[in-house]
């Protein structure tokens, strides 16, 4: 069976190469049959990679341990769902998963554009197939998932596998990697459309209209992947945090920041025909950061707590990235006349300039994270000494940048396009500005002395008020005109322009997340040693140890502490933090006990046990729940932005003899 899988992958690579040649030659020589053949090739690649993936998944599900990959990442005792998720649990499988997702995206692009954009779709196929061929090259010759265990020339197998890393045997972890990968891979599509548009010297924004939903969905996947990853770190790892500025975490944040900048700057092009070069560069940079993220995760070039193996894969990635960067730079420079701005920035106090600032700050944060992530490599080049930058370094830099971004979130929508007079500024800024200042003064008067926290809470209130006022003013205008109540008017307002008002809800989600992050300024923690009957305290909480327990299952051994929790003398219930030791992989993991409330979380980690004594790590995390609530707001807002607006951009096309008349631009 492994031979069929390996054959399918090899064939998929050859067919991908054929698709590149057929698409380009077919387009250049105007041979529609060759272009059609290239389309079929893209679909065939999907079928072949799906066959290969199916074989690997089947081997994982049936615990076929003569596959080296199955023996290394699965075992018999694992629940079925985790046997399936082992597909992306290791190097070879995850690269195959990358390939499969890309093949699926490419097939969807071909199917959905059968009768559209025929002038540049061949190049879109060629670019996607180039990326596909690169990953299939890795699947075939660098990290094949179909290697078998052998002794000499004879294929053998082992009675049971090592099992998936126990830290990954967690529901959020079953979804987190595919979400991230859906995001990483998805940016290949807008990149391919952008480059195809450049190659064919398109004057309009067709590539932007076509890929708008792709970009939003991809950005959403990436965002959800990142949040799931941090939720998993918080709930599973037991170190009491959700973000550690680890290189692999940063690798996922970088394209998200790039994508966020792109989603904003693209509006400048659609609205005013500005920033065309910038948008091309930004979509390319975002895709390169996706590839860079995969490279960083898979090459082991920077040491990470994610502890992925060192592998020679990095060289291939660097070479491929260099090729793509060179190609993109050449194309942009060569096609500059087609990327000329159609209008100018008219005033510094305008929506345009706030978008520009937003982009510059996002890019600055992207660069800061990239610099910090690569600093060990850079320092090794310069001084032969590997110096890693830690969390406090990132926090020092990213907190002010984050706060600046937060305030821009509120300021941007208040500025008008083109220019904003002092009178307009006064109308829009007076109330939210005064409220924010009042809150800051009140917090200071109540004893809060953390400057960043005071500023952050002030900005959060400011942005919230601007968003609420946007909804309220719009809804009131509709309500007055149509005679409907405010709630119906708000729904109608949102439906009229889902993109704008969905975007505002995303902003609201981000504000809630900022509230949660700001809460971390007031974290408390303590490590205590306890035994049966003893008592520990943290903040207003008292924990009484009822008993220390232990047990054994087929998959793992466990130790736990049953605790009675009370706050200010009032009994709240019991909590039971646990520590597990997985037999197959010989690794230990935590099962944290949590008491979650909107104002704070009580977080208890069972760190270890020696004889009758157990070590417990106790934490209080104020406001942390708002991060997860904010993330839900982000998802909800993005989904609303994906709903087609009631008022679409329609126009009667200037007629040319023999061409159809009416057009609706995808909005």
């Amino acid at each position: 069976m492994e031979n069929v899988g390996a054959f399918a992958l090899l064939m998929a690579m050859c067919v991908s190469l054929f698709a590149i040649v057929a698409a380009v030659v077919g387009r250049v020589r105007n041979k529609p049959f060759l272009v059609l053949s290239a389309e079929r090739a893209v679909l065939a690649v999907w079928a072949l990679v799906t066959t290969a993936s199916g074989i690997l998944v089947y081997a994982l599900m049936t615990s076929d341990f003569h596959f080296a990959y199955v023996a290394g990442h699965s075992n018999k005792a694992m629940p079925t769902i985790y046997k399936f998720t082992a597909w992306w649990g290791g190097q070879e499988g995850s690269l195959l998963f990358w390939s499969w997702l890309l093949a699926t995206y490419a097939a969807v692009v071909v199917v959905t554009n059968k009768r559209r954009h025929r002038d540049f779709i061949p190049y879109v196929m060629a670019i996607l197939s180039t990326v596909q061929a690169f990953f299939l090259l890795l699947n075939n010759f660098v990290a094949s998932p179909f290697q078998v265990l052998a002794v000499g020339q004879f294929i053998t197998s082992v009675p049971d596998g090592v099992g998936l890393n126990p830290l990954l045997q967690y529901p959020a972890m079953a979804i987190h990697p595919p979400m991230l990968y859906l995001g990483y891979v998805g940016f290949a599509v807008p990149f391919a459309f952008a480059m195809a548009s450049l190659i064919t010297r398109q004057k309009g924004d067709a590539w932007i209209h076509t890929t708008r939903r792709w970009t939003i969905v991809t950005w959403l996947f990436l965002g959800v992947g990142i949040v799931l990853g941090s939720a998993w770190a918080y709930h599973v790892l037991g170190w009491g945090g959700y973000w550690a500025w680890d290189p692999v975490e940063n690798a996922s944040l970088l394209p998200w920041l790039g994508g966020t900048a792109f989603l904003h700057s693209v509006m400048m092009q659609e609205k005013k025909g500005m920033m065309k070069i910038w948008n091309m560069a930004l979509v390319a940079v975002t895709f390169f950061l996706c590839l860079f993220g995969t490279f960083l995760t898979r090459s082991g070039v920077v040491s990470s707590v994610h502890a992925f193996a060192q592998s020679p894969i990095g060289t291939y990635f660097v070479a491929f990235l260099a090729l793509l960067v060179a190609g993109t730079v050449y194309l942009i420079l060569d096609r500059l006349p087609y990327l000329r701005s159609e209008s100018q920035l008219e005033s510094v106090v305008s929506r345009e300039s706030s978008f520009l600032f937003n982009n510059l700050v996002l890019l600055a944060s992207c660069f800061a994270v990239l610099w910090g992530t690569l600093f060990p490599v850079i320092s090794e080049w310069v001084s032969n000494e590997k110096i890693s930058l830690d969390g406090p370094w990132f926090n020092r830099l990213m907190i002010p940048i984050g706060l600046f971004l937060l305030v821009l979130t509120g300021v941007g929508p208040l500025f008008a396009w083109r220019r904003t007079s002092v009178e307009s500024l006064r109308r829009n800024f007076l109330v939210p500005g005064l409220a924010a200042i009042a809150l800051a003064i009140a917090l200071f008067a109540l004893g809060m002395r953390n400057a960043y926290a005071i500023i952050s809470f002030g900005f959060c209130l400011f942005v919230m008020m601007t968003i609420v006022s946007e909804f309220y003013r719009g809804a009131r205008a509709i309500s007055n005109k149509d005679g409907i109540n405010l709630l119906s008017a708000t729904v109608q307002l949102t439906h009229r322009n889902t993109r704008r008002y969905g975007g505002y809800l995303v902003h609201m989600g981000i504000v809630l997340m900022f509230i949660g992050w700001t809460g971390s300024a007031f974290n408390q923690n303590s490590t205590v040693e306890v035994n049966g009957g003893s008592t520990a305290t943290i903040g207003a909480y008292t924990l009484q140890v009822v008993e220390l327990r232990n047990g054994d299952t087929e998959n793992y051994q466990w130790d736990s502490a049953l605790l009675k929790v009370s706050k200010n003398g009032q009994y709240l219930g019991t909590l039971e933090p646990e520590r597990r030791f997985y037999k197959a992989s010989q690794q230990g993991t935590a099962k944290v006990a949590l008491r979650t409330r909107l104002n704070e979380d009580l977080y208890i980690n069972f760190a270890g046990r020696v004889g009758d004594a157990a070590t417990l790590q106790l934490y209080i995390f104020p406001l942390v729940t708002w991060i997860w609530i904010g993330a839900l707001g982000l998802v909800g807002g993005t989904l609303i932005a994906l709903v087609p607006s009631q008022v679409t951009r329609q126009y009667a096309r200037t007629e040319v003899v023999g061409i159809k008349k009416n057009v609706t631009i995808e909005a």
Partner: protein
Amino acid sequence: MVIAFACLVAVAVFGSLIFLRPSDLPVQAPPSPFQHLDERKAAIYENLRDLQFEYRVGKLSDSDYQQTKLDLQRELAGVMAEIDRVRTELPADLQSVPAAKPKAAAAFLCPSCGATFQQSLKFCGECGKPMKARA
């Protein structure tokens, strides 16, 4: 068995690449030389609509509204002029007609003066006499 399956896969793949029927070819109208200008025009209309709405909800001062509206109208005039310029450069066999002009479809005809209208009217917009017959 494995070899047979592999051969089957290979044949299926090559077959799908080679056996192409003319009916499978996608049909799409050739791109319009005005497309990017039409898109720009639509964007300006949308900007005007947004401007109107923001003014109505009280976000803009009178002077900002008037000035921006004027700018947008100027921009629109520029795009229209560009459409006309492109039209004059078109080859003779690919002549165009402006989109703004409604078609002279004689849907509703005035029996008195012969004026035509696209919608049904009780009285003629030209001569003011009653309209009854549908053309």
